């Protein structure tokens, strides 16, 4: 078994005992990345020199001061700022942007001894579901390179699935961690809104964005979240709630646990093979002692449009900071300040970003504000109330993560409207702020299928507990894409 086929937890055991050095792990990681990148292009920047230097420094640390992720390589979605390392958001607008500070999540990773191995590809400014809107070219799915890895954290999911890194960070505004995790056959968690500081996460839609964690096993995921969660003075929306050690929740005992399965999640718009895979997964949970019942969600069909109006409206405000003056791309063709704004944005932003900003401006305009933006916010309340009622009686809500397996490259042209059925499944966790995790639960035509487990606010422990119990009872997580065997 090679070093890069090991989980973060397995690597930790070896590193802490001194059976392997951080430098050896880093060298093996960089070598694997070099082997696979030509095929999948998960990285925008591989931090070869920085990571090697950091590993050498870590190896000097005394054994009793080593953190929980000592020497573990991790990839970072390129919309999370890293001091002295380019952060591009996969946009020409930030092609040469080098941040002067770290995101809080990055500071916490460094304090725990993790090694940032580089920055991962994504849809431009996290807008998309396929990683095809990246200015630096798309990422491909390690299971079959004719297919997309999902988006917008497509690079983060593909790098983990291909064995390039055991862990990665993504961001999830409307399913952008969970859907690529499902398409790439790995574990992806969007925690409760506020669980992880958003300081240093480039804002797309502030009331929906959350940093998320990707890994090959539930245990690794719980470990990573335990390290980066917690209150932050730099983010007033981060939660003061105590952060438990999420790995302690992995008991395997889910007897008597109450599981809600929304009828619309297994109905029209979801591929029949996906429904079959999730129904089989529910049978596994029942065999472990969980009580599963179908429930209604009366307003769920409005979730995608609610999400689209709110996210675009917030984006048009957040992206106004890109003016070409303070940082980022700067046009050479301006005679005055106004031209500088217009031309910088014309040349710096891609089509998907421009479209959403213009639509968001329309939704926020005086004539449409009440009928679109405020109406979407009220509909958000109704969707949240539907879920509140379900969570009064049930511990978790389960369904498919996505309505289909991965799309073929170029199949959707990155068009958001095509993904309506997926959004019904993914965006409620963001609209309501709840934690939700995707875990592999089957394969259709050799492409992975994901099951989504949503929990109560700040109850990531139960989500992990269910996911871990399911993972131990099945072997989907043990299958690996053939790319990892050098094919």
């Amino acid at each position: 078994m090679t070093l890069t086929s090991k989980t973060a937890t397995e690597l930790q055991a070896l590193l802490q005992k001194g059976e392997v050095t951080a430098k050896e792990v880093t060298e093996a990681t960089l070598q694997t990345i070099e082997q696979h990148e030509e095929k999948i292009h998960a990285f925008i920047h591989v931090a070869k020199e920085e990571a090697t230097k950091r590993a050498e420094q870590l190896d000097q640390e005394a054994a009793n001061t080593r953190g929980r992720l000592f020497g573990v390589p991790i990839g970072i979605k390129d919309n999370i700022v890293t001091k002295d390392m380019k952060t591009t958001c996969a946009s020409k607008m930030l092609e040469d942007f080098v941040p002067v500070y770290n995101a809080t999540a990055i500071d916490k990773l460094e304090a725990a001894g993790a090694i940032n191995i580089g920055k991962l590809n994504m849809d431009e400014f996290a807008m998309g579901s396929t990683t095809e809107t990246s200015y630096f070219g798309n990422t491909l799915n390690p299971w079959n390179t004719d297919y997309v890895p999902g988006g917008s954290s497509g690079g983060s999911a593909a790098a983990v699935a291909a064995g390039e890194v055991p862990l990665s960070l993504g961001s999830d505004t409307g399913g952008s961690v969970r859907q690529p995790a499902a398409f790439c056959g790995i574990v992806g968690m969007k925690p409760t809104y506020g669980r992880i500081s958003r300081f240093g996460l480039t804002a797309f839609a502030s009331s929906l964005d959350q940093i998320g964690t990707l890994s090959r096993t539930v245990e690794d995921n719980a470990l990573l979240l335990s390290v980066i969660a917690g209150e932050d003075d730099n983010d007033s929306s981060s939660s003061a709630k105590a952060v438990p050690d999420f790995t302690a929740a992995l008991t395997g005992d889910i007897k008597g646990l109450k599981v809600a399965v929304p009828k619309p999640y297994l109905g029209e718009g979801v591929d029949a093979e996906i429904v079959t895979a999730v129904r089989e997964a529910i049978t596994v949970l029942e065999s472990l002692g969980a009580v599963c019942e179908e429930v209604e969600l009366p307003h769920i069909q409005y979730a995608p449009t609610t999400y689209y109006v709110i996210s675009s409206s917030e984006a048009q405000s957040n992206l106004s900071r890109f003016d070409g003056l303070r940082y980022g791309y700067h046009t050479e063709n301006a005679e005055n300040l106004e031209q500088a704004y217009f031309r910088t944005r014309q040349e710096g932003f891609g089509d998907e970003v421009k479209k959403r900003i213009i639509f968001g401006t329309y939704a926020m305009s005086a004539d449409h504000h009440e009928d679109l933006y405020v109406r979407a916010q009220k509909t958000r309340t109704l969707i949240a109330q539907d879920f509140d009622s379900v969570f009064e009686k049930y511990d978790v809500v389960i369904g498919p993560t996505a309505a289909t397996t991965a799309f073929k490259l170029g199949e959707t042209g990155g068009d958001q409207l095509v993904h309506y059925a997926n959004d019904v499944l993914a965006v409620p966790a963001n609209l309501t702020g709840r934690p939700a995790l995707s875990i592999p639960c089957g394969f259709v035509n050799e492409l992975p299928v994901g099951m989504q487990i949503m929990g109560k606010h700040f109850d990531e422990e139960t989500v992990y507990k269910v996911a871990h119990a399911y993972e131990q009872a099945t072997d989907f997580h043990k299958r690996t894409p053939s790319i990892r065997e050098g094919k």
Partner: protein
Amino acid sequence: MTTFSKEDVKYFADFVRIGLSEEDKENFSAKIADLIESVSNLKEVDVTGVKPMTHPVAMINVLREDVPKDILDREVMLASAEDQEDGLIRVPDIL
């Protein structure tokens, strides 16, 4: 069927200072019309008496003393700007 003309595209793009080519206007006109059409289902929802939800988790606004802090050194902050002089960002002519 919803329409969103090239003039509409320019009108809203002007608010947010985004320059567009004629081809862009044509392209976005159709795409944004589709978007507006797709979100029109929100009109079916009975939102009478419903309060808008602005934040996904209930929070209480906690205030603190407004004490200025030096978070980053001025030179460090200016390092990302394309054009600077005497500790300030230079911008093109305003008029």
